[in-house]
């Protein structure tokens, strides 16, 4: 019995160590590699070069902006819907749950293919203008983020008594805008913040959709371009990007106080 237990623990440790090596070795390798830009000595030269590149900041700002708009637009689209379905149309829940899983069946590359086919021609001509293209990019990202945006909001709503809150507010004379903005939204804060950072983590380095719609204006395609020409800079970008993802996830942990949220499938 005791021997069994010890064997089990040994077994657990074996996989744990294997897994941590898998986690850490690539990071270590990338970091060490990124320090070798200067011959025969370790330096942060590759990082300096990356940070000095105006295109780094330009594309970074662009993707950040798109990410923030995606979050805002996505929440405006999803929160009222999820709220109303919980409150009044529970029969539709099956439908929205199914719909919000659809992006998973339609891979990003297929989605962008279809979007280009539909919106680049008549009657939309979205890809002809700067604004139209960016709007299409935001729409595509909302679709991409839909599975976890919707789920995060819906779980957030499940944790509060939507009906009681709404009726209490109504009995005190509140109208719909007040109910939504001052009662429901504050209660969904944690859920919305988790959803927001997950979206940001996906959008910031996203490559597939961005490369076909806006090209190297976005951060993902920019990284890819750097990777084709500059070896050391690309490793430093990988480290920067990892730190960024880490920061986003850290914020979620911070705001949700340690509640682990299952991450969704992203666009790889």
């Amino acid at each position, binding site marked *: 019995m005791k021997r069994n237990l010890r064997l089990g623990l040994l077994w657990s440790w074996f996989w*744990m160590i294997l897994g941590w090596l898998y986690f850490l070795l690539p990071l270590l390798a990338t970091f060490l590699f990124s320090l070798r830009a200067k011959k025969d000595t370790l330096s942060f030269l590759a990082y300096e070069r990356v940070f000095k590149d105006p295109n780094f900041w330009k594309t970074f700002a662009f993707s950040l902006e798109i990410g923030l708009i995606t979050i805002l637009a996505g929440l405006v689209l999803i929160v009222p819907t999820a709220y109303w379905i919980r409150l009044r149309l529970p029969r539709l829940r099956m439908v929205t749950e199914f719909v919000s899983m659809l992006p998973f069946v339609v891979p990003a590359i297929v989605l962008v293919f279809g979007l*280009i086919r539909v919106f680049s021609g008549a009657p939309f001509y979205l890809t002809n203008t700067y604004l139209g293209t960016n709007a299409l990019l935001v729409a595509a990202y909302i679709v991409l983020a839909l599975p976890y945006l919707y789920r995060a909001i819906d779980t957030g709503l499940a944790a509060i008594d939507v009906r*009681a809150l709404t009726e209490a507010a109504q009995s005190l004379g509140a109208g719909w805008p007040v109910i939504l903005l001052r*009662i429901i939204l504050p209660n969904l804060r944690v859920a919305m913040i988790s959803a927001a950072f997950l979206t940001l983590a996906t959008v910031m380095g996203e490559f597939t959709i961005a490369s076909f719609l806006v090209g190297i204006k976005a951060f993902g395609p920019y990284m890819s371009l750097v990777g084709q020409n500059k070896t050391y800079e690309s490793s430093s970008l990988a480290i920067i990007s990892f730190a960024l993802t*880490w920061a986003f996830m850290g914020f979620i942990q911070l705001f949700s106080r340690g509640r682990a949220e299952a991450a969704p499938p992203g666009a790889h």
Partner: protein
Amino acid sequence: MRRLNNLFPFTKQGAHSARPVSSIPWRDALWVLPFFLFIFLFVFLPSASLLSGSFQDKWGNFTLQNYLDLFKPSILSAYWISIRISLASALGGGLLGFMMAYGITVGGLPRRLRTALLTFSGVASNFAGVPLAFAFMATLGRTGLITVLIQTLFGINLYERGFSIYSFWGLTFTYIYFQFPLMILIITPALDGLRREWREAAQILGASSWEYWRRVALPVLTPSILGAMILLFGNAFGAYATALSLTGGFINLITILIGSQIKGDVLQNLGLSYALAMGMVVVMAIMISIYYLLRRYSERWLKI
């Protein structure tokens, strides 16, 4: 939230004091219509457009030729490699993820390890695409850390032995990096649901550890494991950025084929490329159907 509930504790008991929520149907529509309109425009329309395009020839006439063309060896092999890599990375990542999640739940590893692992998994499962490709080039590339390490420690040159980061295994190992953290995140709650009493009951009845897993724990976990595997498969199957930046497009994956088709009409046949895209949707649909079948089967088994 808690503060508000305390302010209005009476609302929990009943709605008698509250005005009934208005019941005008158009108001319902007003609340949910934007969402469904969005879905129609940006999910349904693109898919339907590809679907209709896949049944048309160059002149817009109805044809099934595009789907017959999918069975050309070069295209079939692209699907096949994609499916194999997705399966391999889902199985490998699933196994590693399951074992690690096992360690932090029922395996009795320290509590602090659990928090660290879950946090790290959240990060790593989102660390994919271009930067992941860079990281694995520095790890398993021709002059990568592990490659050089194995060369100096064991005198084995991986690349002379046929390994390459651009190959099936190179890509599989890279994908596993985002696969197993996802498995950990999905399966940990399921493992938490295993009740200690079940194990004790099984032991009292004389079951060995193996028998307990074979006949109690695994059947209970099967639906969650199957669901996770489907998620992992789709995760790898749709991957484009990682593969493209890792191999520069030198591997014949279905996503890369579609990508080059969008950039320029490489196959000289647009209808065929729409069929290629629909083929991916069909593969995913088949995988999900298999999942539902297996799940039903496993649940029926559970009832007996």
